[in-house]
Protein backbone atom coordinates (compact mmCIF):
# COMPACT_ATOMS: atom_id res chain seq x y z
CA UNK A 1 0.00 0.00 0.00
CA UNK A 2 1.46 3.32 -1.02
CA UNK A 3 1.41 6.29 1.32
CA UNK A 4 -1.95 8.05 1.33
CA UNK A 5 -1.89 11.35 -0.54
CA UNK A 6 -3.19 14.53 1.02
CA UNK A 7 -5.68 16.47 -1.04
CA UNK A 8 -3.14 18.79 -2.57
CA UNK A 9 -1.17 15.82 -3.89
CA UNK A 10 -4.14 14.32 -5.77
CA UNK A 11 -4.09 14.15 -9.56
CA UNK A 12 -6.09 17.09 -10.96
CA UNK A 13 -9.85 17.01 -11.51
CA UNK A 14 -10.54 13.60 -9.94
CA UNK A 15 -8.56 11.88 -12.67
CA UNK A 16 -6.33 8.88 -12.23
CA UNK A 17 -3.45 7.63 -14.35
CA UNK A 18 -4.02 4.49 -16.40
CA UNK A 19 -2.57 1.14 -15.35
CA UNK A 20 -1.98 2.13 -11.73
CA UNK A 21 -3.72 -1.07 -10.59
CA UNK A 22 -0.61 -3.00 -11.64
CA UNK A 23 0.83 -1.86 -8.35
CA UNK A 24 -1.99 -3.54 -6.45
CA UNK A 25 -1.09 -7.17 -5.99
CA UNK A 26 -3.97 -9.60 -5.84
CA UNK A 27 -1.80 -12.72 -5.84
CA UNK A 28 -2.44 -13.20 -2.14
CA UNK A 29 -6.09 -13.89 -2.92
CA UNK A 30 -5.12 -17.43 -4.01
CA UNK A 31 -6.54 -20.09 -1.71
CA UNK A 32 -3.56 -22.44 -1.66
CA UNK A 33 -3.41 -23.45 -5.32
CA UNK A 34 -1.69 -21.85 -8.25
CA UNK A 35 -1.64 -22.63 -11.96
CA UNK A 36 1.54 -24.31 -13.19
CA UNK A 37 2.55 -24.16 -16.83
CA UNK A 38 4.04 -27.16 -18.57
CA UNK A 39 5.76 -25.64 -21.60
CA UNK A 40 6.62 -29.02 -23.09
CA UNK A 41 2.91 -29.75 -23.50
CA UNK A 42 1.74 -26.21 -24.34
CA UNK A 43 0.53 -25.66 -27.89
CA UNK A 44 0.30 -21.86 -27.45
CA UNK A 45 -3.35 -21.79 -28.44
CA UNK A 46 -3.81 -18.74 -26.16
CA UNK A 47 -7.14 -19.95 -24.83
CA UNK A 48 -5.83 -19.55 -21.29
CA UNK A 49 -4.83 -15.99 -22.12
CA UNK A 50 -8.22 -14.95 -23.48
CA UNK A 51 -10.01 -16.74 -20.61
CA UNK A 52 -8.04 -15.27 -17.71
CA UNK A 53 -10.02 -12.68 -15.71
CA UNK A 54 -6.87 -11.12 -14.28
CA UNK A 55 -4.60 -10.57 -17.26
CA UNK A 56 -2.26 -12.97 -15.48
CA UNK A 57 -1.31 -15.23 -18.37
CA UNK A 58 1.82 -13.60 -19.72
CA UNK A 59 2.37 -13.70 -23.45
CA UNK A 60 5.01 -12.50 -25.84
CA UNK A 61 4.90 -12.39 -29.63
CA UNK A 62 1.83 -14.58 -29.72
CA UNK A 63 3.21 -17.24 -27.37
CA UNK A 64 2.46 -18.05 -23.80
CA UNK A 65 5.36 -17.38 -21.44
CA UNK A 66 3.93 -18.18 -18.00
CA UNK A 67 1.95 -16.57 -15.23
CA UNK A 68 1.95 -13.29 -13.41
CA UNK A 69 1.66 -14.66 -9.89
CA UNK A 70 1.57 -11.16 -8.42
CA UNK A 71 -1.93 -10.77 -9.80
CA UNK A 72 -3.20 -14.33 -10.45
CA UNK A 73 -6.08 -15.02 -8.04
CA UNK A 74 -5.91 -18.78 -8.56
CA UNK A 75 -9.40 -19.17 -10.00
CA UNK A 76 -8.36 -22.14 -12.12
CA UNK A 77 -10.12 -21.11 -15.33
CA UNK A 78 -6.88 -21.45 -17.30
CA UNK A 79 -6.34 -25.05 -16.18
CA UNK A 80 -9.97 -25.94 -16.79
CA UNK A 81 -9.98 -24.39 -20.27
CA UNK A 82 -6.59 -25.73 -21.36
CA UNK A 83 -7.44 -27.99 -24.31
CA UNK A 84 -4.35 -30.25 -24.53
CA UNK A 85 -4.98 -33.97 -24.15
CA UNK A 86 -4.42 -36.31 -22.49
CA UNK A 87 -2.26 -34.10 -20.24
CA UNK A 88 -3.01 -30.45 -19.72
CA UNK A 89 -0.37 -27.80 -20.23
CA UNK A 90 -1.71 -26.02 -17.15
CA UNK A 91 -2.49 -27.75 -13.88
CA UNK A 92 -3.54 -26.37 -10.52
CA UNK A 93 -1.01 -27.33 -7.87
CA UNK A 94 -0.58 -26.71 -4.17
CA UNK A 95 1.59 -23.68 -3.39
Amino acid sequence: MSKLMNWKELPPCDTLAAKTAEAFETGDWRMGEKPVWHPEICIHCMICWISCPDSSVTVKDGKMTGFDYKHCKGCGICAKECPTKPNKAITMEKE
Partner: protein
Amino acid sequence: MITVAKTGNEAMAEAMRQINPDVVAAYPITPATEIVMIFAKYVADGLVDTEYIPVESEHSAMSACVGAASAGARVMTGTSSQGLALMYEILPIASALRLPIIMCEVNRAISGPINIHCDHSDTMAARDFGWIQIFSENTQEAYDNLLQAVRIAEDKRVMLPIMVTTDGFIISHGMEKLEMIEDPIVKEYIGEKKPEYSLLDIEKPTTVGALDLTDYYFEHKMPVIEAMKNAKDVILEVGKDFEKKFGRQYGFYEKYKLDDAEFAVVVLGSASGTAKVAIDQLRASGVKAGMLKIRVFRPFPAEEIAKELTGKKAIAVMDRSDSFNTCGGPVFTEIRSALFDSQNKPSITNFVYGLGGRDINVEQIKNIFESIRNVGKVPVVNYIGVRQ
Protein backbone atom coordinates in the same frame (compact mmCIF):
# COMPACT_ATOMS: atom_id res chain seq x y z
CA MET B 1 -23.33 47.37 -28.90
CA ILE B 2 -26.51 46.46 -30.70
CA THR B 3 -29.76 47.47 -29.04
CA VAL B 4 -32.57 44.98 -29.45
CA ALA B 5 -35.78 43.95 -27.68
CA LYS B 6 -35.55 40.41 -26.30
CA THR B 7 -37.13 38.16 -23.72
CA GLY B 8 -34.89 36.52 -21.14
CA ASN B 9 -35.02 33.24 -23.01
CA GLU B 10 -34.20 34.93 -26.30
CA ALA B 11 -31.32 36.78 -24.68
CA MET B 12 -29.89 33.56 -23.30
CA ALA B 13 -30.31 31.81 -26.66
CA GLU B 14 -28.51 34.71 -28.34
CA ALA B 15 -25.68 34.47 -25.83
CA MET B 16 -25.48 30.73 -26.53
CA ARG B 17 -25.28 31.40 -30.25
CA GLN B 18 -22.44 33.82 -29.68
CA ILE B 19 -20.65 31.41 -27.33
CA ASN B 20 -21.07 28.72 -30.00
CA PRO B 21 -20.42 25.77 -27.66
CA ASP B 22 -19.04 22.47 -28.94
CA VAL B 23 -21.93 20.48 -27.51
CA VAL B 24 -25.41 21.30 -26.24
CA ALA B 25 -27.54 18.56 -24.68
CA ALA B 26 -30.99 19.58 -23.54
CA TYR B 27 -34.55 18.47 -23.00
CA PRO B 28 -37.61 20.68 -23.18
CA ILE B 29 -39.29 22.02 -20.04
CA THR B 30 -41.42 25.08 -19.46
CA PRO B 31 -40.37 27.88 -19.13
CA ALA B 32 -36.80 27.11 -20.29
CA THR B 33 -37.85 25.23 -23.44
CA GLU B 34 -37.70 28.30 -25.62
CA ILE B 35 -33.96 28.73 -25.08
CA VAL B 36 -33.33 25.31 -26.56
CA MET B 37 -35.97 25.75 -29.29
CA ILE B 38 -34.33 28.94 -30.48
CA PHE B 39 -30.90 27.37 -30.25
CA ALA B 40 -32.07 24.27 -32.17
CA LYS B 41 -33.11 26.59 -34.99
CA TYR B 42 -29.64 28.16 -34.96
CA VAL B 43 -28.24 24.64 -35.32
CA ALA B 44 -30.69 23.84 -38.12
CA ASP B 45 -29.77 27.06 -39.92
CA GLY B 46 -26.04 26.50 -39.52
CA LEU B 47 -25.51 29.62 -37.41
CA VAL B 48 -23.50 27.59 -34.87
CA ASP B 49 -21.08 24.65 -35.15
CA THR B 50 -22.54 22.94 -32.10
CA GLU B 51 -23.25 19.22 -31.87
CA TYR B 52 -26.74 19.38 -30.46
CA ILE B 53 -28.03 16.30 -28.59
CA PRO B 54 -31.81 16.29 -28.22
CA VAL B 55 -31.80 13.85 -25.31
CA GLU B 56 -34.74 11.90 -23.92
CA SER B 57 -34.60 13.42 -20.39
CA GLU B 58 -32.83 16.02 -18.31
CA HIS B 59 -30.98 13.22 -16.55
CA SER B 60 -29.51 12.22 -19.87
CA ALA B 61 -28.93 15.89 -20.74
CA MET B 62 -26.65 16.36 -17.75
CA SER B 63 -25.11 12.91 -18.28
CA ALA B 64 -24.27 13.77 -21.88
CA CYS B 65 -22.91 17.15 -20.73
CA VAL B 66 -20.56 15.34 -18.33
CA GLY B 67 -19.45 12.97 -21.11
CA ALA B 68 -18.86 15.80 -23.58
CA ALA B 69 -17.08 18.02 -21.06
CA SER B 70 -14.84 15.10 -20.02
CA ALA B 71 -13.89 14.88 -23.68
CA GLY B 72 -12.76 18.51 -23.43
CA ALA B 73 -15.75 20.16 -25.09
CA ARG B 74 -17.32 23.48 -24.14
CA VAL B 75 -20.79 22.36 -23.13
CA MET B 76 -24.08 24.10 -22.39
CA THR B 77 -27.58 23.10 -21.40
CA GLY B 78 -30.78 24.71 -20.20
CA THR B 79 -33.51 23.59 -17.87
CA SER B 80 -35.99 24.43 -15.15
CA SER B 81 -37.74 23.01 -12.09
CA GLN B 82 -38.46 19.26 -12.44
CA GLY B 83 -35.84 19.12 -15.16
CA LEU B 84 -33.21 20.47 -12.81
CA ALA B 85 -34.49 18.08 -10.16
CA LEU B 86 -34.00 15.16 -12.54
CA MET B 87 -30.42 16.34 -13.04
CA TYR B 88 -29.66 16.58 -9.31
CA GLU B 89 -27.96 13.18 -9.20
CA ILE B 90 -25.43 14.20 -11.83
CA LEU B 91 -24.83 17.82 -10.74
CA PRO B 92 -22.31 16.98 -7.98
CA ILE B 93 -20.54 14.58 -10.33
CA ALA B 94 -20.00 17.45 -12.75
CA SER B 95 -18.42 19.56 -10.03
CA ALA B 96 -16.33 16.71 -8.61
CA LEU B 97 -14.92 16.00 -12.08
CA ARG B 98 -14.26 19.76 -12.39
CA LEU B 99 -16.25 20.17 -15.59
CA PRO B 100 -17.12 23.79 -16.40
CA ILE B 101 -20.54 23.02 -17.85
CA ILE B 102 -22.69 26.11 -18.37
CA MET B 103 -26.39 25.96 -17.62
CA CYS B 104 -29.22 28.35 -18.34
CA GLU B 105 -31.61 27.71 -15.48
CA VAL B 106 -35.01 29.34 -15.49
CA ASN B 107 -36.30 29.40 -11.92
CA ARG B 108 -39.60 27.60 -11.56
CA ALA B 109 -41.46 26.10 -8.60
CA ILE B 110 -40.77 22.46 -7.81
CA SER B 111 -43.78 20.12 -7.83
CA GLY B 112 -46.04 19.43 -6.05
CA PRO B 113 -48.47 20.65 -6.71
CA ILE B 114 -47.24 20.92 -10.25
CA ASN B 115 -46.83 24.57 -11.18
CA ILE B 116 -44.98 26.15 -14.08
CA HIS B 117 -44.40 29.58 -12.57
CA CYS B 118 -41.52 31.26 -10.84
CA ASP B 119 -40.06 30.63 -7.48
CA HIS B 120 -36.54 29.67 -6.49
CA SER B 121 -37.20 26.24 -5.00
CA ASP B 122 -35.55 24.39 -7.91
CA THR B 123 -32.29 26.35 -7.87
CA MET B 124 -32.11 26.55 -4.08
CA ALA B 125 -32.41 22.79 -3.80
CA ALA B 126 -29.34 22.55 -6.07
CA ARG B 127 -27.27 24.95 -3.96
CA ASP B 128 -25.04 22.36 -2.29
CA PHE B 129 -23.80 20.48 -5.36
CA GLY B 130 -20.66 22.46 -6.07
CA TRP B 131 -22.18 24.58 -8.84
CA ILE B 132 -21.65 28.31 -9.06
CA GLN B 133 -25.06 30.01 -9.01
CA ILE B 134 -25.69 33.44 -10.46
CA PHE B 135 -29.08 35.16 -10.36
CA SER B 136 -30.26 37.72 -12.88
CA GLU B 137 -32.68 40.58 -12.32
CA ASN B 138 -33.53 41.17 -15.95
CA THR B 139 -32.81 40.26 -19.55
CA GLN B 140 -29.65 42.32 -19.74
CA GLU B 141 -28.19 40.65 -16.67
CA ALA B 142 -29.14 37.21 -17.98
CA TYR B 143 -27.21 37.90 -21.16
CA ASP B 144 -24.20 39.49 -19.47
CA ASN B 145 -24.08 36.81 -16.77
CA LEU B 146 -24.07 34.01 -19.32
CA LEU B 147 -21.12 35.50 -21.19
CA GLN B 148 -19.21 36.00 -17.94
CA ALA B 149 -20.13 32.47 -16.88
CA VAL B 150 -17.86 31.02 -19.56
CA ARG B 151 -14.88 32.96 -18.26
CA ILE B 152 -15.63 32.22 -14.62
CA ALA B 153 -16.28 28.49 -15.00
CA GLU B 154 -13.34 27.78 -17.30
CA ASP B 155 -10.78 29.74 -15.28
CA LYS B 156 -8.02 27.33 -14.22
CA ARG B 157 -8.48 28.36 -10.60
CA VAL B 158 -12.15 27.45 -10.75
CA MET B 159 -13.05 24.69 -13.24
CA LEU B 160 -16.52 24.32 -11.82
CA PRO B 161 -19.93 24.08 -13.47
CA ILE B 162 -22.09 27.18 -13.36
CA MET B 163 -25.77 27.96 -13.59
CA VAL B 164 -27.05 31.35 -14.59
CA THR B 165 -30.66 31.79 -13.58
CA THR B 166 -33.55 33.96 -14.64
CA ASP B 167 -37.00 34.04 -13.09
CA GLY B 168 -39.54 31.91 -14.94
CA PHE B 169 -41.94 33.90 -17.16
CA ILE B 170 -41.18 37.16 -15.35
CA ILE B 171 -37.77 37.37 -17.02
CA SER B 172 -37.81 34.36 -19.35
CA HIS B 173 -40.86 35.61 -21.25
CA GLY B 174 -40.73 39.33 -20.47
CA MET B 175 -39.60 41.49 -23.38
CA GLU B 176 -37.00 44.12 -22.47
CA LYS B 177 -34.35 46.25 -24.05
CA LEU B 178 -31.09 44.38 -24.49
CA GLU B 179 -27.66 45.75 -25.35
CA MET B 180 -25.93 42.97 -27.23
CA ILE B 181 -22.23 42.79 -27.85
CA GLU B 182 -21.15 42.13 -31.44
CA ASP B 183 -20.44 38.47 -32.33
CA PRO B 184 -16.69 38.75 -33.01
CA ILE B 185 -16.15 40.68 -29.80
CA VAL B 186 -17.93 37.98 -27.80
CA LYS B 187 -15.84 35.34 -29.54
CA GLU B 188 -12.69 37.14 -28.56
CA TYR B 189 -13.98 37.81 -25.04
CA ILE B 190 -14.70 34.16 -24.22
CA GLY B 191 -11.70 32.72 -26.08
CA GLU B 192 -10.98 29.05 -26.74
CA LYS B 193 -11.57 26.46 -24.08
CA LYS B 194 -8.40 24.86 -22.75
CA PRO B 195 -9.50 21.73 -20.90
CA GLU B 196 -7.47 20.24 -18.05
CA TYR B 197 -7.85 16.78 -19.53
CA SER B 198 -9.64 15.01 -22.35
CA LEU B 199 -10.94 11.50 -22.64
CA LEU B 200 -10.12 11.71 -26.33
CA ASP B 201 -6.41 11.99 -25.53
CA ILE B 202 -5.54 8.48 -26.65
CA GLU B 203 -1.83 8.96 -26.04
CA LYS B 204 -2.40 9.89 -22.43
CA PRO B 205 -5.18 7.60 -21.24
CA THR B 206 -6.90 8.86 -18.12
CA THR B 207 -9.35 7.21 -15.78
CA VAL B 208 -12.10 9.65 -14.84
CA GLY B 209 -14.69 9.13 -12.12
CA ALA B 210 -12.94 6.44 -10.08
CA LEU B 211 -14.38 4.91 -6.93
CA ASP B 212 -13.26 6.44 -3.65
CA LEU B 213 -13.46 4.49 -0.43
CA THR B 214 -13.25 6.11 2.99
CA ASP B 215 -9.57 6.85 2.40
CA TYR B 216 -10.01 9.31 -0.49
CA TYR B 217 -13.56 10.66 -0.79
CA PHE B 218 -12.96 13.46 1.71
CA GLU B 219 -9.71 14.46 0.01
CA HIS B 220 -11.50 14.65 -3.34
CA LYS B 221 -14.09 17.07 -1.98
CA MET B 222 -11.41 19.51 -0.78
CA PRO B 223 -10.35 20.74 -4.27
CA VAL B 224 -14.00 21.57 -5.00
CA ILE B 225 -14.19 23.55 -1.77
CA GLU B 226 -10.95 25.30 -2.68
CA ALA B 227 -12.15 26.01 -6.23
CA MET B 228 -15.31 27.57 -4.83
CA LYS B 229 -13.14 29.87 -2.70
CA ASN B 230 -11.11 30.78 -5.79
CA ALA B 231 -14.33 31.44 -7.66
CA LYS B 232 -14.92 34.44 -5.41
CA ASP B 233 -11.78 36.14 -6.71
CA VAL B 234 -12.43 35.12 -10.28
CA ILE B 235 -16.06 36.33 -10.28
CA LEU B 236 -14.89 39.77 -9.16
CA GLU B 237 -12.02 39.85 -11.67
CA VAL B 238 -14.29 38.81 -14.53
CA GLY B 239 -16.89 41.35 -13.43
CA LYS B 240 -14.31 44.16 -13.37
CA ASP B 241 -12.96 43.17 -16.76
CA PHE B 242 -16.48 43.04 -18.18
CA GLU B 243 -17.18 46.51 -16.85
CA LYS B 244 -13.95 47.82 -18.35
CA LYS B 245 -14.75 46.32 -21.73
CA PHE B 246 -18.50 46.80 -21.92
CA GLY B 247 -19.40 49.37 -19.28
CA ARG B 248 -21.83 47.37 -17.15
CA GLN B 249 -20.85 46.72 -13.55
CA TYR B 250 -21.00 43.28 -11.90
CA GLY B 251 -19.93 42.04 -8.48
CA PHE B 252 -21.30 39.64 -5.90
CA TYR B 253 -24.31 41.86 -5.36
CA GLU B 254 -25.79 45.18 -6.29
CA LYS B 255 -26.42 47.85 -3.70
CA TYR B 256 -29.44 50.05 -4.17
CA LYS B 257 -29.46 53.08 -1.90
CA LEU B 258 -27.92 50.80 0.69
CA ASP B 259 -24.97 52.74 2.07
CA ASP B 260 -26.95 55.25 4.13
CA ALA B 261 -30.01 53.02 4.58
CA GLU B 262 -31.29 52.22 8.05
CA PHE B 263 -33.62 49.51 6.80
CA ALA B 264 -32.85 47.14 3.97
CA VAL B 265 -34.27 44.22 2.08
CA VAL B 266 -32.15 41.40 0.67
CA VAL B 267 -33.55 40.14 -2.63
CA LEU B 268 -32.57 37.78 -5.47
CA GLY B 269 -33.78 37.94 -9.04
CA SER B 270 -36.67 39.79 -10.60
CA ALA B 271 -38.32 40.99 -7.38
CA SER B 272 -35.43 43.40 -6.92
CA GLY B 273 -36.88 45.58 -9.69
CA THR B 274 -40.11 45.84 -7.71
CA ALA B 275 -38.15 46.52 -4.54
CA LYS B 276 -36.36 49.44 -6.20
CA VAL B 277 -39.71 51.14 -6.89
CA ALA B 278 -40.85 50.54 -3.30
CA ILE B 279 -37.56 51.97 -1.98
CA ASP B 280 -37.85 55.07 -4.16
CA GLN B 281 -41.34 55.71 -2.80
CA LEU B 282 -40.21 55.15 0.80
CA ARG B 283 -37.22 57.45 0.32
CA ALA B 284 -39.58 60.12 -1.00
CA SER B 285 -41.52 59.88 2.23
CA GLY B 286 -38.35 60.11 4.32
CA VAL B 287 -37.69 56.47 5.15
CA LYS B 288 -34.06 55.52 4.78
CA ALA B 289 -34.74 52.32 2.83
CA GLY B 290 -32.29 50.37 0.73
CA MET B 291 -31.63 47.01 -0.89
CA LEU B 292 -28.91 44.46 -1.33
CA LYS B 293 -29.59 42.38 -4.43
CA ILE B 294 -27.64 39.15 -4.37
CA ARG B 295 -26.21 38.17 -7.74
CA VAL B 296 -23.91 35.36 -6.65
CA PHE B 297 -25.47 32.82 -4.31
CA ARG B 298 -22.80 30.13 -4.73
CA PRO B 299 -20.12 30.79 -3.66
CA PHE B 300 -21.88 32.78 -0.95
CA PRO B 301 -20.15 36.13 -0.32
CA ALA B 302 -20.79 35.99 3.41
CA GLU B 303 -18.07 38.35 4.67
CA GLU B 304 -18.77 40.97 2.03
CA ILE B 305 -22.50 40.92 2.65
CA ALA B 306 -21.98 41.06 6.42
CA LYS B 307 -19.90 44.21 5.98
CA GLU B 308 -22.64 45.84 3.91
CA LEU B 309 -25.43 45.01 6.36
CA THR B 310 -23.66 45.58 9.66
CA GLY B 311 -24.89 48.74 11.33
CA LYS B 312 -28.32 48.75 9.71
CA LYS B 313 -31.23 48.91 12.11
CA ALA B 314 -33.17 46.07 10.53
CA ILE B 315 -32.92 43.73 7.57
CA ALA B 316 -35.66 41.83 5.78
CA VAL B 317 -34.47 38.82 3.85
CA MET B 318 -36.83 37.88 1.05
CA ASP B 319 -36.87 34.21 0.14
CA ARG B 320 -38.70 32.90 -2.90
CA SER B 321 -38.58 29.35 -1.53
CA ASP B 322 -38.86 27.67 1.84
CA SER B 323 -36.58 25.18 3.50
CA PHE B 324 -39.33 23.42 5.48
CA ASN B 325 -37.02 23.61 8.46
CA THR B 326 -39.40 25.85 10.53
CA CYS B 327 -36.70 28.50 10.86
CA GLY B 328 -36.47 30.34 7.56
CA GLY B 329 -35.68 30.10 3.86
CA PRO B 330 -32.26 29.35 2.38
CA VAL B 331 -31.23 32.96 1.82
CA PHE B 332 -32.29 33.96 5.31
CA THR B 333 -30.26 31.26 7.04
CA GLU B 334 -27.17 32.22 5.01
CA ILE B 335 -27.56 35.93 5.77
CA ARG B 336 -28.23 35.41 9.45
CA SER B 337 -25.23 33.12 9.68
CA ALA B 338 -23.09 35.68 7.81
CA LEU B 339 -24.00 38.35 10.37
CA PHE B 340 -23.44 36.18 13.44
CA ASP B 341 -19.96 37.54 14.14
CA SER B 342 -20.81 41.19 13.46
CA GLN B 343 -20.53 43.53 16.41
CA ASN B 344 -23.33 45.82 15.43
CA LYS B 345 -25.72 43.45 13.79
CA PRO B 346 -29.19 44.46 12.69
CA SER B 347 -32.35 42.63 13.58
CA ILE B 348 -33.07 40.16 10.80
CA THR B 349 -36.46 38.97 9.68
CA ASN B 350 -37.40 36.52 6.95
CA PHE B 351 -40.20 37.04 4.43
CA VAL B 352 -41.04 34.08 2.25
CA TYR B 353 -42.92 35.29 -0.81
CA GLY B 354 -43.97 34.51 -4.34
CA LEU B 355 -44.16 30.71 -4.22
CA GLY B 356 -45.48 29.17 -7.41
CA GLY B 357 -45.43 32.49 -9.26
CA ARG B 358 -47.54 34.42 -6.73
CA ASP B 359 -47.07 38.06 -7.64
CA ILE B 360 -45.11 40.39 -5.37
CA ASN B 361 -46.01 44.07 -5.61
CA VAL B 362 -44.69 47.42 -4.45
CA GLU B 363 -47.23 47.69 -1.61
CA GLN B 364 -46.17 44.34 -0.17
CA ILE B 365 -42.52 45.32 -0.17
CA LYS B 366 -43.40 48.62 1.48
CA ASN B 367 -45.29 46.59 4.09
CA ILE B 368 -42.16 44.52 4.65
CA PHE B 369 -40.24 47.71 5.40
CA GLU B 370 -43.04 48.81 7.69
CA SER B 371 -42.83 45.49 9.54
CA ILE B 372 -39.10 45.65 10.17
CA ARG B 373 -39.26 49.26 11.30
CA ASN B 374 -41.25 47.93 14.26
CA VAL B 375 -38.53 45.63 15.46
CA GLY B 376 -39.79 42.74 17.55
CA LYS B 377 -43.42 43.16 16.44
CA VAL B 378 -43.36 40.48 13.74
CA PRO B 379 -42.27 36.85 13.90
CA VAL B 380 -38.80 35.89 12.68
CA VAL B 381 -40.24 34.04 9.70
CA ASN B 382 -43.18 35.48 7.80
CA TYR B 383 -45.14 34.32 4.78
CA ILE B 384 -46.44 37.17 2.69
CA GLY B 385 -48.91 37.18 -0.16
CA VAL B 386 -50.53 33.95 0.96
CA ARG B 387 -54.16 33.80 2.08
CA GLN B 388 -54.10 33.04 5.80
